[in-house]
């Protein structure tokens, strides 16, 4: 994991200069828009399909090389592609990523565990994280996901994946819940079920948000902060109590510490409606659409160029005028969002956040710093003045935070 440190310095320098000095360290590859779910929170399945072939991915990964550390293979439903293991093998061969993350709806219960086992074999020295989507329990899950019998199939898939745990040390099995107006009242039940029955290595939750990629703009699926705040607080309490994962190991402790801070950022983003820490989408993170369009992120989903039109040379697409224009817009704070994928990279490149995580992990007291009774240096770092990406507003949130502490 230490190999990311020099990359972070390059990302920060790129952000300051407004032009990339290296390729992104976090790349999401949307392998297809095809999806066998019909979620109430997503319309991606309506998008046309013009998917990259495995040969096209090989050329692309070769052009990216060792710059990328974190790969996410998403969709649509990524496991619908039979050649998903070959894609991962190509990424592993050319890019040697430290982390490979793949979400799944778990519907194809007879196929997914075998396909994921081939993924694990294809990337033996990468940490492979498979996140099963779970948006409700039983029929409530089926209703939100729009597929009868989805829950039962997802549970069979989960069991099949869990059986792989003993054989692959590089495998992290997680559960992922999207919280929307459709299921926010169910969160406690979902949380208890995941903690007590599924017992995954990790449990993550994201708020349903409007994204151009998913064609969810204008839908109003995002729950109000009043309803979502208790969800976040429950998640943070779970981190403090180490309810998921083996926090005696260093990597899960780092992950949990970042996750804790991510939830802080989500809360503040929803309330303040601005970038809480500088967004490095377009510098440190990127997304490749199934047809080879390259985006700074899936929230805006604006193409900076198409890999097919640039002979599969990522650097060529990444340095177009359109890419520069979007970078300027992002840096100017013309957009904001709580997108988890980009947020984690942003936190990694944000010195106060990185420092506070490092202190937390070193102390081995991830959650204790949340307690007002135990506010050490890492807690103070969390309250450092946050610079809005526009550079126009210096917001000292220490006063606000102190008020909150005093009122507890």
């Amino acid at each position, binding site marked *: 994991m230490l190999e990311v440190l020099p990359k972070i310095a390059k990302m920060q320098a790129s952000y300051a200069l407004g032009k990339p000095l290296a390729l992104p360290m976090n790349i999401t590859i949307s392998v297809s*828009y*095809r999806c066998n779910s019909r979620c*109430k929170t997503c*319309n991606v*399945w*309506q*998008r*046309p*399909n*013009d998917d990259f072939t495995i040969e096209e991915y090989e050329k692309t990964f070769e052009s990216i090389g060792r710059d990328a550390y974190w790969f996410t293979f998403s969709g649509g439903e990524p496991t619908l592609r039979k050649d998903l293991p070959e894609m991962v093998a190509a990424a592993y061969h050319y890019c040697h990523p430290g982390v490979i993350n793949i979400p799944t709806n778990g519907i194809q219960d007879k196929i997914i565990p075998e396909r994921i086992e081939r993924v694990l074999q294809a990337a033996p020295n990468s940490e492979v994280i498979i996140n099963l989507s779970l948006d409700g329990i039983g029929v409530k899950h089926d209703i939100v996901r729009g597929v009868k019998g989805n829950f039962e199939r997802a549970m069979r898939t989960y069991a099949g994946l869990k059986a792989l745990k003993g054989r692959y040390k590089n495998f992290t099995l997680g559960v992922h819940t999207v919280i929307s*107006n*459709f299921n926010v009242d169910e969160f406690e039940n979902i949380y208890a079920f995941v903690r007590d029955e599924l017992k995954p290595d990790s449990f993550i939750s994201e708020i349903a948000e*409007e*994204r*151009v990629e998913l*064609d*969810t*703009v*204008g*839908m*109003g*699926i*995002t*729950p*109000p902060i*009043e*309803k979502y705040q208790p969800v976040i607080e429950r998640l943070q309490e779970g981190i403090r109590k180490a309810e998921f994962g083996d926090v005696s190991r260093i990597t899960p402790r780092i992950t949990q510490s970042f996750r804790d801070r991510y939830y802080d950022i989500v809360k503040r983003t929803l309330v303040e*409606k601005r970038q809480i820490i500088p967004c490095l989408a377009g510098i440190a993170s990127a997304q490749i659409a199934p*047809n*080879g*369009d390259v985006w700074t992120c899936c*929230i*805006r*989903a*604006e193409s900076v160029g*198409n890999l*097919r*039109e640039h002979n599969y040379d990522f650097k060529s697409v990444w340095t177009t005028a359109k890419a520069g224009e979007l970078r300027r817009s992002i840096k100017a704070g*013309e*957009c*904001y969002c709580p997108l988890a994928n980009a947020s984690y990279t942003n936190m990694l490149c944000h010195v106060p956040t990185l420092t506070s995580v490092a202190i937390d992990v070193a102390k081995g007291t991830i959650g204790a710093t949340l307690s007002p009774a135990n506010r050490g240096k890492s807690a103070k770092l969390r309250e450092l003045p946050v610079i809005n990406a526009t550079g126009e507003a210096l917001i000292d949130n220490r006063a606000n935070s102190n008020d909150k502490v005093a009122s507890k």
Partner: protein
Amino acid sequence: MTICPQCGAENEDDIKNCKSCRVNMYWAFQHYAELASLREANQLPPRPQSTSFLVETSKKIDDGPTVDWLRSTIKKFGFKGAGKKVCTTAE
């Protein structure tokens, strides 16, 4: 003409997103009524206030390379054929 279930704007029959509020029309006919009642229960206005950068970016889809295909597909098959193979880059 098709009336948007969310905002009441008049749209052409084969349009993917409402020209006024940008909501996905297929989704709106399936789920808007349920969501509106949930939003009401949560003391939210029935229509969301989408941020301007998202609305502006979403509008650009209407001018993208797939719009003709999507429009004809919707007209011909409804949304059942929406997963069909198509070339999305400029020829």
